[in-house]
């Protein structure tokens, strides 16, 4: 018997309407006011606001319903159970690994809790280039404030773990400013296993906040059910056709679920939402659907320190630096945000290049390893226009080409990270690249990194932030969704997830999704009920 109470299991026992698609024995047809596809940051916030406002809601999730009693902090179990493609989703050429959640709560169930409001300069760019006039820091502040309150987002008072503090100390030696990351936690034990599902329910993910609240207010949740296509008649969607998945979530059982509703909200994330619209042949007169998909392409630098770093222990992300986002104009040479990632054996060992004795030597030093990430801000320059989603036999594949402009940013990022790690006292630094070495001084690293042939597959590139593909603009030539999140050309379809963003955010995107979607969902609730939307508060 666990010492932690499991609010999800308690809710199921109390009669929540949850249906596991894998167990369905017959086809079904269900009806609601609103069908929401996806239960992550966008779907969760929408579901709670609509349900509290008195609307009948059905949430469709292709992942399973897992909760704290299932979260055993083991990568080998967590990745297949909680991530898209077992945490090994790849771009078309397999050059970039993409981490996205696939479980109730979406990526919020497995993210590292970093919470940033949308940067002012990003909003200003949206204003200037996409005409998003009501996307200003001032107009969004109440919505960010509301969701910060709802999800317990606040300063994290515990000192950073060594993995994060080395970023702070190294940067400080070089007069590079750093900041502390706010987190969406309540009673966090400072364990460090956020990426495998929070075992103590401290992380205020959608799994333990908005989804339970929506279910308590009468919403229905379908799990292991994949949204296949929208049936479009003239300019309206009449039904959403879904397929039930097998218990392992890999195959389909043959059972079909037809969902009727007055309105459909798509929140499956920035690869799956455009793909659903493409499978449904949604109107796309300007060829923008699934284009401008952003990743914050991320490169990694590993340092070895004399002291223990224990990168697996403690809050995974607590220190950041935006210094290299502000060196130049936002549309100048590519900027990058610096953070530290949690280090656990499966993800770390597969990320480190090489094999045999070389790889084993790195692994023996595991507790002494420090890692930095540089998240490159894409979408602000003509040479970093993002990637595009296409369908292959109905499944989405993201093609994300890298231009010399992006590689220039990668090289500068690898240099910045190595310099900071040496300033923090690293014995050696290895940029994560098949041809890189463990450099033992900053001078050596500089020469080595400047000589590296930067190419996909040779350079390890990862992403945990997929954005764009259904970009917003009230000008239909610039975006497929309106500033109100409505899909242009369809009268009853909204997009409420990170695919709305017309550029990358330039920060971990969860709070951008929470705040922006809270406003969109409140607007939708008001339009559908004729009453002001209900305001979600902490239970």
């Amino acid at each position, binding site marked *: *018997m*666990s*010492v*932690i109470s499991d609010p999800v299991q308690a809710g199921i026992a109390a009669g929540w309407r949850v249906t596991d698609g894998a167990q369905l024995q017959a086809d079904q047809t269900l009806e609601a006011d609103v069908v929401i596809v996806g239960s992550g940051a966008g779907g969760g916030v929408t579901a709670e606001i609509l349900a509290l406002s008195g609307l009948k809601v059905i949430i469709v999730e292709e992942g399973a319903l897992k909760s704290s009693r299932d979260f*055993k*902090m*083991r*990568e*080998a179990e967590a*990745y*297949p159970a909680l991530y898209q*493609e*077992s945490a*090994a989703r790849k771009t*078309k*050429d*397999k050059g970039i690994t993409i981490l996205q959640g696939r479980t109730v709560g979406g990526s919020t169930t497995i993210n590292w809790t970093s919470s940033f409001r949308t940067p002012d300069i990003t909003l200003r760019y949206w204003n200037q280039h996409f005409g998003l006039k009501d996307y200003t820091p001032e107009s969004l502040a109440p919505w960010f404030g509301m969701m910060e309150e709802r999800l317990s987002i606040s300063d994290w008072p515990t000192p950073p773990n060594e993995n994060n503090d080395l970023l702070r100390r190294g940067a400080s030696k070089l007069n590079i400013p750093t900041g502390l990351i706010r987190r969406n936690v309540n009673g966090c034990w400072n*364990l460090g*296993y956020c990426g495998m599902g929070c*075992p*103590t329910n401290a992380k205020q993910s959608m799994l333990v906040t908005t989804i339970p609240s929506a279910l308590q207010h009468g919403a229905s949740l379908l799990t292991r059910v994949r949204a296949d296509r929208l049936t479009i008649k003239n300019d309206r969607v009449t039904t959403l056709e879904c397929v039930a998945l097998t218990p*392992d979530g*890999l*195959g389909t059982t043959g059972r079909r679920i037809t969902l009727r509703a007055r309105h459909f909200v798509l929140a499956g994330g920035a690869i799956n939402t455009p793909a659903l619209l493409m499978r449904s042949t949604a109107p796309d007169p300007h060829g923008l659907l699934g284009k401008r998909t952003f990743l914050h392409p991320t490169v990694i630098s590993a340092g070895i320190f004399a002291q223990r770093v224990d990168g*697996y*222990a403690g809050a995974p992300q607590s220190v950041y630096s935006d210094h290299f986002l502000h060196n130049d104009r936002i549309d100048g040479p590519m900027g990058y945000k610096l953070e530290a990632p949690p280090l*656990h*054996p*499966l993800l*770390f*060992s*597969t990320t480190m*290049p090489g*094999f*045999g*004795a*070389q*790889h*084993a030597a790195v*692994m*023996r030093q*595991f*507790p002494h390893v420090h890692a930095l990430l540089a998240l490159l801000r894409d979408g602000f320059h003509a040479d970093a226009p993002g990637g595009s989603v296409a369908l*292959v*036999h*109905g*499944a989405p*594949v993201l093609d994300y080409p890298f231009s010399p402009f992006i590689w220039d940013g990668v090289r500068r990022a690898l240099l910045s990270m190595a310099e900071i790690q040496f300033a923090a006292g690293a014995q050696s630094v290895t940029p994560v690249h*098949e*041809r890189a070495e463990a450099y033992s001084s900053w001078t050596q690293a500089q020469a080595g990194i400047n000589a590296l042939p930067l190419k996909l*597959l*040779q350079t390890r590139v990862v992403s945990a932030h997929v954005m764009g593909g259904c970009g917003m603009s009230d000008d239909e030539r610039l975006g497929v969704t309106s500033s109100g999140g409505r899909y242009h050309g369809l009268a009853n379809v909204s997009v409420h997830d990170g695919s709305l963003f017309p550029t990358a955010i330039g920060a971990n995107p969860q709070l951008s999704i929470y705040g922006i979607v809270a406003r969109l969902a409140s607007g939708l609730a008001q339009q559908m009920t004729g009453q002001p939307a209900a305001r979600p508060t902490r239970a």
Partner: protein
Amino acid sequence: MQVPRRSFLKIGVAGACTLAAGGALYRLAHAPSASRFALDGKALTVLNAVIPVMLGPVLPVAAEARALALSGASARVRDAVLGLPLATQKEVQDLFGLLALGPARRLLAGVRGDWEQADPANVAAFLHSWRTHSLQTLQVAYQALHDLIIGAWYADPATWESIGYPGPVRELLA
């Protein structure tokens, strides 16, 4: 047929043709398929030759312990593959199927003789060459082998002591 290493390194177009003939090592197409990965005899032979070279000194030396570790490692690779999307499982099956074919082993991997008798130095040269090969397809295949074998190994709690990873708080695992 003995193929000198030099010609392997120049393989280029010939390699691409062999790949096509060998049965689509790397399918972009997510062809709908219900079949799941099976670690059949041929795939196991390839894995048994590649695992010791990929893992290097972390495998025990004593024969019995080594055999046990090897069979555990290949079983965990199989389990890891079984968690991947079906289309990806098919790609991995194709990769092992291809490597098990004599001509592909000799021409693409440059490994002489059967996998059972493969010289570890020869296997290491094959991995090293694919790691930085000019054909992206071979780099992808190398990374698949790297991630599957190394990831499955270090995901196993039995290996954690060797790398100083304490693992999760036991009190919460009840």
